[in-house]
């Protein structure tokens, strides 16, 4: 069973109430969040930063980054729908019960698929392909023993529930889409999304049955591919009629996550110099020359209390949890609605500031700390069990209980680490970026 206790949905049971739909969406959100750290961890383990066309690993790294960002999009679409049906207040990302604990089985999936934080490798790519596996790849199992076989199957149940709860047949349980369009849209995440390595669909404002179904369609199609396609899709998947050019038949295409992972495994999107002048494969995703030898499931308990690397991993956990708490704060702050006549060049807006900080903390704090960890070798002075081979640290993506206001704690933890990791400081380092973050004084204790 999953650590997320609310995952009590039975796949073969129709969704008949708004609360039932909300429970399914909370379970879906947990599934989406559980993929993000393991995708990021594998991406961080690629040695290159990919900053030139000649840099090793650029293709695999870019694909992986784009996939991780699309998983964030899926989490956003799911949470936007939770808000639209009036259940947004029931859900928080910064919640010890919600944050995945690795290793753990993928919630509700049959057969069991264990999720680990591991470096990029053929074995790990096979796990990723299992997560995104299209319907029909494995034979169906008897209904009585399957919560769900694929995410597509799971989301189709949610779509069926949306259709029912939008119809008159739902009676008192009918979703109030007018309330979503008139008020609750302000509490959804819509601005502040870019993915240069992925599809061009962005977070949907969910204000109707149609927009809800489209949001779910983006999740399923980007992940495992369309039901009748399983591979390549039009880009974007959902097109605004007012901006419908180019038509899908001549427009861009995007590959599903399953297809992208398969291409990485085959070496089509490789890890550097795939073939040398003699036609010999030089590096693959299993070559230690191009992948950092990071710990599997690097919990902080594996390290001695005296190790400064442990403190850096704790900082990484605290930053990860700050990101989730900041996302909660965004969903609690309504977007300001400006009248069409408002022509001011700027408006001061707290919600907008939180959104900018959300992007900045992921790119300017979470990533640099993770990058520093994967480049840091662990010794017998760091690990409780001395390493037999070369092994590096990694971001643990664990729950962190803040002892004080989160920004204040981040500042103190970062400052205390400067003696051991001076690259965190300087006039353009992690310490500066943390200093620009908003305080989160209302975090529940």
């Amino acid at each position, binding site marked *: 069973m999953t650590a997320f206790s609310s995952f009590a949905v039975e796949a073969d049971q129709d969704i008949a109430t708004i609360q039932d739909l909300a429970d399914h969406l909370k379970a879906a959100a947990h599934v989406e969040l559980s993929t993000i750290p393991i995708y990021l961890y594998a991406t961080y383990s690629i040695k290159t930063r*990919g900053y030139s066309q000649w840099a090793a690993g650029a293709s695999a790294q870019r694909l992986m980054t784009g996939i991780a960002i699309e998983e964030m999009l899926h989490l956003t679409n799911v949470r936007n729908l939770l808000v639209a049906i009036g259940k947004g207040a029931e859900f928080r990302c910064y919640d010890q019960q919600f944050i995945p604990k690795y290793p753990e089985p993928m919630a509700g999936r049959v057969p069991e698929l264990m999720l680990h934080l591991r470096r990029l490798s053929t074995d790990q790519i096979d796990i990723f392909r299992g997560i995104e596996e299209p319907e029909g790849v494995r034979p169906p199992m008897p209904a009585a023993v399957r919560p769900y076989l694929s995410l597509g199957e799971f989301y189709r149940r949610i779509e069926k529930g949306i259709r029912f709860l939008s119809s008159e047949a739902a009676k008192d349980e009918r979703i109030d889409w007018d309330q979503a369009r*008139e008020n609750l849209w302000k509490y959804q995440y819509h601005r502040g999304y870019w993915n*240069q390595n992925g599809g061009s669909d962005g977070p949907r404002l969910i204000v*109707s049955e149609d*927009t809800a179904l489209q949001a779910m369609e983006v999740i399923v199609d980007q992940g495992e591919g369309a039901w009748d396609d399983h591979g390549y899709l039009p880009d974007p998947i*959902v097109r605004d009629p007012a901006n419908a050019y180019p038509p899908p038949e001549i427009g861009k295409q995007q590959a599903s996550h399953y297809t992208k992972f398969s291409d990485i495994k085959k070496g089509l999107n490789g890890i550097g110099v795939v073939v040398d002048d003699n036609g010999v494969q030089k590096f693959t995703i299993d070559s230690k020359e191009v992948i950092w030898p990071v710990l599997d499931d690097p919990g902080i308990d594996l390290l001695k209390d005296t190790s400064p690397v442990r403190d850096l991993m704790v900082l990484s956990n605290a930053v990860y949890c700050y990101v989730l708490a900041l996302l909660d704060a965004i969903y609690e702050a309504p*977007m300001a609605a400006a009248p069409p006549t408002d022509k001011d060049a700027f408006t001061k*807006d707290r919600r907008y500031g939180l959104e900018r*900080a959300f992007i*900045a903390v992921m790119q300017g704090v979470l990533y640099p700390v993770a990058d520093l960890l994967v480049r840091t070798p662990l010794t017998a002075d760091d690990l409780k069990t001395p390493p037999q081979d070369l092994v590096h640290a990694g971001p643990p993506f664990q729950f962190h209980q803040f002892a004080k206001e989160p920004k204040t704690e981040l500042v103190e933890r970062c400052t205390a680490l400067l003696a051991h990791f001076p690259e965190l400081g300087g006039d353009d380092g992690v310490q500066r970026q943390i200093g620009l973050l908003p305080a989160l004084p209302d975090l529940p204790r």
Partner: protein
Amino acid sequence: MRDEPAPLPQEVPRELHVCMGLNSCAGLDASGNAPMAGTGTCATVFHVCHGEGSCRGQGGCGYAGTDYEQFHPGEQDCRYNGSCASPINESRVFSAGPLKGKSVWKQARRLFEARMYAAGKAFGPAPGQGIPDDRMPHYDYMQQPQEGQGHGRSARDDRE
């Protein structure tokens, strides 16, 4: 959608730059009151995203774009070559490239200072390092969705 574009700080800016501290001469900033080069208080161009700059040097950079495109905030060679929104907010960092995770405004200022050194021109200190994150430019203002809005056509509709 807005009926017409919102006004810029100056209707006809005399110089195009993407943030505070990047004006190349006195009085060429958004307010027209900068006492000397490098001391201006804001951008003279506004645009929302990648490839939308209508002239050279208008890319704010940081959110999207190739590694090469992102390395040159405020210094693109031609219209539509720039990446990302202008003006640059203070917490914005590069999402890719050799400066991944580093401040976009600081790189824009470094490039500006290099241009000024090369031209032999004096410049003053910037009043800040980007606009505050909570100053929302007009192009990101939101309006309440109307009935039927967002009911786009999807790939699934086309297949059915």
